């Protein structure tokens, strides 16, 4: 037996002697063997250091003298204090790891009892082995399971946004967290694939302005980042780790530097960052596809708006200023991003509902007759059919449909009241009325001043308009950018 085998066996024996299974075994034997003591000896009959010392007995030496090193059976004998001792071998497979020695027995136990104790010891040993295996499994599997769960959580966090700027920032922050690093930078290749453009640079020590040199573009092939982007090979050093973002081609890189505890980055962390990069690429690609889709949707809506404008300018669409006001109110009211996008779509085609309303009614300057009003209500819904087949406009449809509703329930087409009117429609109603008042239309008399228009809207707060929307509108309209574009004094 070589030294390492010997050490391994001894370590096993020490762990066994201290295990809960062994403790139960000792307690039980103490009861059934008339308060005898139990000591664990190694294969050479030496007492383990962890075992209690019984000075008056030199049992190890005694047994050694008997040359019983290969003894695989139990042995009972008298010791120097004239009491009986019983030894049982601890066997694992075919080799003896050590012995269990019971001392201070009054008589030699009955053979049936010895067999029962021997059986119980085998069971104790098996239980300990099971404990050991479970412990090993726990030590190897648990960190990996935690890492896997972390990656799954990161996936959830990354897939919950389609906004590219928000996503890149989030990837950088999560990288800092998982790598326990102080610095992280995410760079994406430009269209020509010749340069890396920094999209997010985070240093835990200080905020980095976009003018900082760390936001400078890097030529592919130059510096660590450029080399990783060129070769697609990961980079690992004591103070930094860099992995490529690979979809079909390389689209960028993630680099983490300087661990918070000043330790070195290791292979496990490189593996984690590579997995995180895989998740990041999927999320980036999704965000890019979503942006493309959004661009196409805006293109289609603008084409439709241009087509409607060609039929009758300013009848079905409004000015850019109208769209800006609508979006400013929505952002000030902190509407979710998805709702703001739908509101934007709706604001580009606010009056599609007028499409099949006869022109003489649309351009009438005086008040409408009951019959004319009924035509408007009916045709408003009819006209909306021209856009209902555009799938991406479906969430915007209720905004377009109901922006002629009044807060008190006296509007059209359905006479909806207060919160039953979609929030987007309530916002558009205010902006629509404001724009109608301040702009000159061929069928309308002279235009109203901005101040008068605001007063008029405020007057109808709670009846025609949602009070919260009106308050927000008054807040945003006083902003310098609107004061300038409206080019009118706003009190």
């Amino acid at each position, binding site marked *: 037996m070589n030294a390492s085998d010997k050490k391994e066996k001894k370590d096993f024996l020490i762990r066994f002697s201290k295990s809960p299974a062994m403790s139960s075994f000792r307690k039980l034997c103490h009861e059934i063997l008339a308060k005898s003591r139990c000591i664990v000896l190694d294969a050479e009959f030496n007492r383990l250091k962890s075992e209690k010392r019984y000075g008056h007995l030199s049992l190890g030496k005694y047994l050694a003298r008997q040359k019983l090193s290969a003894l695989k059976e139990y042995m009972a004998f008298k010791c120097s204090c004239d009491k009986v001792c019983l030894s049982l071998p601890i066997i694992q497979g075919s080799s003896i790891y050590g012995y269990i020695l019971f001392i201070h027995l009054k008589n030699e136990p009955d053979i049936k009892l010895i067999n029962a104790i021997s059986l119980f010891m085998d069971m104790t040993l098996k239980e300990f082995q099971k404990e050991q295996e479970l412990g090993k499994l726990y030590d190897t599997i648990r960190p990996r399971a935690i890492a896997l*769960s*972390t990656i799954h959580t990161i996936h959830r966090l990354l897939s*919950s946004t389609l906004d590219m700027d928000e996503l890149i920032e989030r990837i950088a922050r999560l990288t800092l967290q998982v790598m326990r690093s102080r610095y992280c930078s995410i760079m994406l290749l430009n269209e020509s694939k010749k340069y890396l453009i920094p999209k997010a640079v985070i240093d835990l020590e200080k905020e980095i302005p976009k003018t900082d040199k760390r936001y400078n573009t890097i030529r592919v092939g130059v510096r660590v980042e450029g080399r990783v982007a060129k070769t697609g090979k990961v980079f690992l050093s004591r103070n930094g780790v860099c992995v490529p973002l690979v979809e079909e081609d390389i689209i960028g890189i993630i680099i983490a530097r300087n661990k918070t505890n000043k330790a070195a980055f290791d292979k496990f962390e490189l593996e984690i960052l590579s997995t995180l990069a895989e998740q990041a690429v999927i999320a980036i690609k999704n965000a890019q596809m979503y942006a493309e889709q959004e661009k196409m949707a805006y293109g289609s809506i603008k084409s439709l708006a241009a087509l409607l404008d060609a039929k009758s300018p300013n009848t079905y669409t409004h000015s850019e200023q109208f769209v800006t006001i609508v979006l400013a109110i929505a952002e000030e009211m902190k509407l979710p991003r998805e709702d703001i996008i739908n509101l934007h779509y709706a604001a580009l085609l606010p009056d599609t509902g007028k499409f099949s309303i006869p022109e003489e009614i649309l351009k009438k300057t005086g008040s409408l007759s009951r019959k004319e009003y009924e035509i408007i209500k009916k045709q408003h819904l009819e006209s909306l059919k021209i856009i209902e087949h555009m799938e991406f406009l479906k969430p915007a449809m209720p905004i377009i449909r109901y922006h002629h509703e009044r807060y008190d329930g006296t509007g059209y087409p359905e006479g909806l009241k207060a919160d039953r009117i979609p929030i987007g429609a309530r916002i558009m109603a205010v902006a629509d009325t404001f724009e109608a008042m301040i702009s000159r239309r061929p069928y309308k008399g002279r235009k109203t001043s901005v101040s008068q228009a605001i007063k008029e809207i405020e007057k109808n707060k709670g009846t025609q308009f949602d009070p919260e929307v009106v308050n927000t509108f008054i807040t945003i309209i006083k902003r310098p950018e609107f004061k300038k574009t409206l080019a009118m004094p706003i009190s």
Partner: protein
Amino acid sequence: MKKIKKLFKNEAAKRILLFFNENPNCIDTAKGISLWIGYDVALTQKALNHLVKENILINHRTISTSAYAYTNNKAIVKKIEKYIKNIR
């Protein structure tokens, strides 16, 4: 250190701190963390919120998910590490 001692009096907070001290790279939901520490989800959630308030944990929040991670503050991490060493 007094503040940390107080935090360790709450069983859920204690388990969470021991967990993050051992697994500082972990990011997980309240449900996930409660599983790792073997403690009731509601009590874990309560302790997590408290530890976020104390700047010991960071809450990475999105509309659908709330995930918790260990602070990157060196001083706090060191203090907790030292406290754990002392009680062991």
